[in-house]
């Protein structure tokens, strides 16, 4: 049974059938036909103030729910403004569908008003993209787009739709299946490889689980937990993997890498079996690859075959979905443990494992991640400690990019996945506030923090209007050190403290700024007032803008200098040199 309808209505019908309940967007000339059918429809539209933030908001929605986020922009500048958000989603493997309008088909190539080569420009910004010039192709394309975005390794998909398709009439028939002969999704994992992995893990004396964003994309937290219980291996989680295992779990060490903890980096360097789950051996984690766990045997499980062997050739590669593979692995581990119980080999291994844990705990004790405080000024670590406390592991925290992001990742504990939203691979400033918009829209009843720096905050400051206009009770906490902190840190450590172009003068008075938008704002600078200020912010039923003035010259430690091995961390500021008396 087919119905005659406009392309715009057909698009809406497809979105409804895909379970879309919200679109983040900004209308324009060529998309007005679509916005017309969207008017007073049950699918909610959230108007942002810049299209880049529509993409970030769609990401915030997707990261916090696991569903496909949807954003919409017009042709030309609308579409080009989406690109940073698209690359961000591509780098962190986040499922979003971006819908853009395009000029009428026959005008393409004539440099028409607000025309842009969206299809060409976004080709390398997306997992896949489409240009729809015929109404007959629309429904199939939309369902394909959602399938591609959400399956395998998730990613952004853009569909560029011409104005004449929106306005044209066509017969809509529900699409039963998508035909993508060249798109293979790997799920099950090779049985033989899983067996080899189980054997390797079982025999290891110093096993370590190195988990990443793939664990969260797979929704494999319960399965991971069982693997952890069975192996009793220490666990390090990357920036994108935080929350895959509750932070309170005794096996969780912390985040590894450039600003990871001492214990995490030492454990990675000294393990004899590295169980890499849903992670890609990113340079922020591995640093100098030749020195990265050179003695470890590596089991690498990932859904993307191109990641296996890209940076590190594993001893046991397994391509597939962690949700399907971990239970099989867990069954084999249980069998192996049962078969060997109480043999001399088992006892020897148990002793070695105990020694390994003693070593790991020693590393944790030697250089723990600490919430530093001061009597006179608010230390950034103190701020993170207080956010950790008030969040109770349950709030959604959307960070921006920079020093605050690293301290937040080190010191805020998450009780589960999809609570920590942060731009990792691209490290795109301005992400925090619009991501919080997306997360709050997705979870109206939840406490959502936008934890941002004074630099990143100002990149997406127009979204204060979105927050106010939609009454989103987001708690915006600005870690204000007056500088582009991370760049300043590098200039201090490696460029003789020549602080070129990093001073952020002209920061607004947030009390006046928030008031200008009709909500509460406060500045806090005294350590004794910090807790109260945060509590007041959380108690406030509406949005809240809290600027926390922190020590301007604090550096994030540990730090792995560029090109060094991760075991060569700088653990703190250099000791002042004693000048001998003459």
């Amino acid at each position, binding site marked *: 049974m087919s119905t005659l309808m406009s392309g715009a209505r057909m698009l809406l019908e497809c979105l409804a059938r895909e379970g879309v309940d919200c679109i983040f967007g900004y209308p324009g000339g060529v998309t007005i036909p679509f916005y017309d059918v969207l008017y007073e429809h049950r699918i909610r539209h959230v108007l942002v103030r810049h299209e880049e933030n529509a993409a970030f908001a769609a990401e915030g929605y997707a990261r916090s729910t696991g569903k496909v986020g949807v954003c919409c922009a017009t042709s030309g500048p609308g579409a080009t403004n989406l690109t940073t958000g698209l690359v961000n989603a591509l780098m962190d493997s986040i499922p979003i569908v971006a819908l853009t309008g395009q000029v009428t088909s026959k005008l393409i190539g004539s440099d028409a008003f607000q025309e842009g080569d969206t299809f060409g420009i976004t080709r390398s910004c997306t997992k896949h993209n489409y240009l729809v010039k015929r109404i007959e192709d629309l429904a199939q394309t939309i369902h394909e787009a959602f399938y591609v975005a959400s399956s395998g390794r998730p990613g952004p998909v853009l569909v560029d739709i011409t104005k004449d398709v929106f306005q044209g009439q066509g017969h809509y028939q529900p699409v039963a299946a998508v035909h993508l002969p*060249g798109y293979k999704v790997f799920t099950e994992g090779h049985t033989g490889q899983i067996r080899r992995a189980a054997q390797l893990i079982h025999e290891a004396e110093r096993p370590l689980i190195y988990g990443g964003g793939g664990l969260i994309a797979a929704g494999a937290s319960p399965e991971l937990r069982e693997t952890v219980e069975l192996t009793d291996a220490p666990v390090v989680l990357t920036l994108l993997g935080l929350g895959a295992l509750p932070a309170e779990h005794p096996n969780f060490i912390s985040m590894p890498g450039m600003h990871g903890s001492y214990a995490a980096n030492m454990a990675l360097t000294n393990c004899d079996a590295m169980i890499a789950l849903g992670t890609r051996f990113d340079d922020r984690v591995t640093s100098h690859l030749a020195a990265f766990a050179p003695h470890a045997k590596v089991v690498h499980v990932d859904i993307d075959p191109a990641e296996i062997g890209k940076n590190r050739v594993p001893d046991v590669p397994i391509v597939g979905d962690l949700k399907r593979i971990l239970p099989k692995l867990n069954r084999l581990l249980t069998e192996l443990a049962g078969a060997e119980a109480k043999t001399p080999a088992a006892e020897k291994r148990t002793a070695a494992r105990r020694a390994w844990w003693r070593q790991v705990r020693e590393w944790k004790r030697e250089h723990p991640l600490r919430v530093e405080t001061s009597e006179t000024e608010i230390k950034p670590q103190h701020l993170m400690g207080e956010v950790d406390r008030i969040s109770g592991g349950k709030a959604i925290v959307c960070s921006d990019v920079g020093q605050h992001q690293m301290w937040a990742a080190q010191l805020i504990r998450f009780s589960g996945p999809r609570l920590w939203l942060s731009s990792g691979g691209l490290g795109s400033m301005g992400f925090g506030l619009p991501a919080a918009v997306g997360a709050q829209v997705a979870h109206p009843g939840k406490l959502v923090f936008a934890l941002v720096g004074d630099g990143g905050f100002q990149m997406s400051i127009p979204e204060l209007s979105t927050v106010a206009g939609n009454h989103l009770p987001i708690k915006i906490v600005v870690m204000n050190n007056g500088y582009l902190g991370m760049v300043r840190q590098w200039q201090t450590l490696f460029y003789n403290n020549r602080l070129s172009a990093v001073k952020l003068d002209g920061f607004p008075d947030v009390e006046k700024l928030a008031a200008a938008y009709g909500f509460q704002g406060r500045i806090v600078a005294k350590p004794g007032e910090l807790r109260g200020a945060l509590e007041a912010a959380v108690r406030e039923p509406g949005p809240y803008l809290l600027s926390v003035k922190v020590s301007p010259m604090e550096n994030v430690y540990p730090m792995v200098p560029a090109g060094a091995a991760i075991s060569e961390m700088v653990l703190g500021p250099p000791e002042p040199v004693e000048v001998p008396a003459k």
Partner: protein
Amino acid sequence: MLQVISLLMENKPGALMRVTGLLSQRGYNIESLTVARTLDPELSRMTIVVDVDAVQRQQVIKQMNKLINVLQASDLTESPAVVRELVLVRVRTAQESRTAVLKEAEIFAGRVVDSSTEGFVIEVTGDPEKLGEFIDVMGSYGEVEVTRSGALAIALEARKLRLQPPVPTKAGSKEELQAEPQP
């Protein structure tokens, strides 16, 4: 050894750019590239000659296989394959050398496709290295202008093509969604 990648891909707009984009993004040099429809008009075969070391080539092929439009990407560098290319050479010859040039063309199994007082245009088909030798030889007789087609390759062992079956969508589900009110 010639580094040849052969791809079977969907004949869709932008598919070609996606593949070349992968290579240019990583700064790899494309020595030659040919693409044309196969028996199935929906599909094209692309042959690329690249200059990439073996390890990186493996990664490039994995990335190509990830592309939605690519059905199969294979590295033919190490596999048994037949590689052929066509070259058209225009050579200016002095009167005395004309016969010698024709003899060379015969040695290389070339065909003279144009003859004038200025010289000849000769067409030669063969393996790319042989073509290189022919061009050098022609160059010794006079000024040459060369147009190469780029290498084509066909694997000697048929590779089993595993195509993905259709995947059901949410839209085709049995519960009929409420019909939207028509404006």
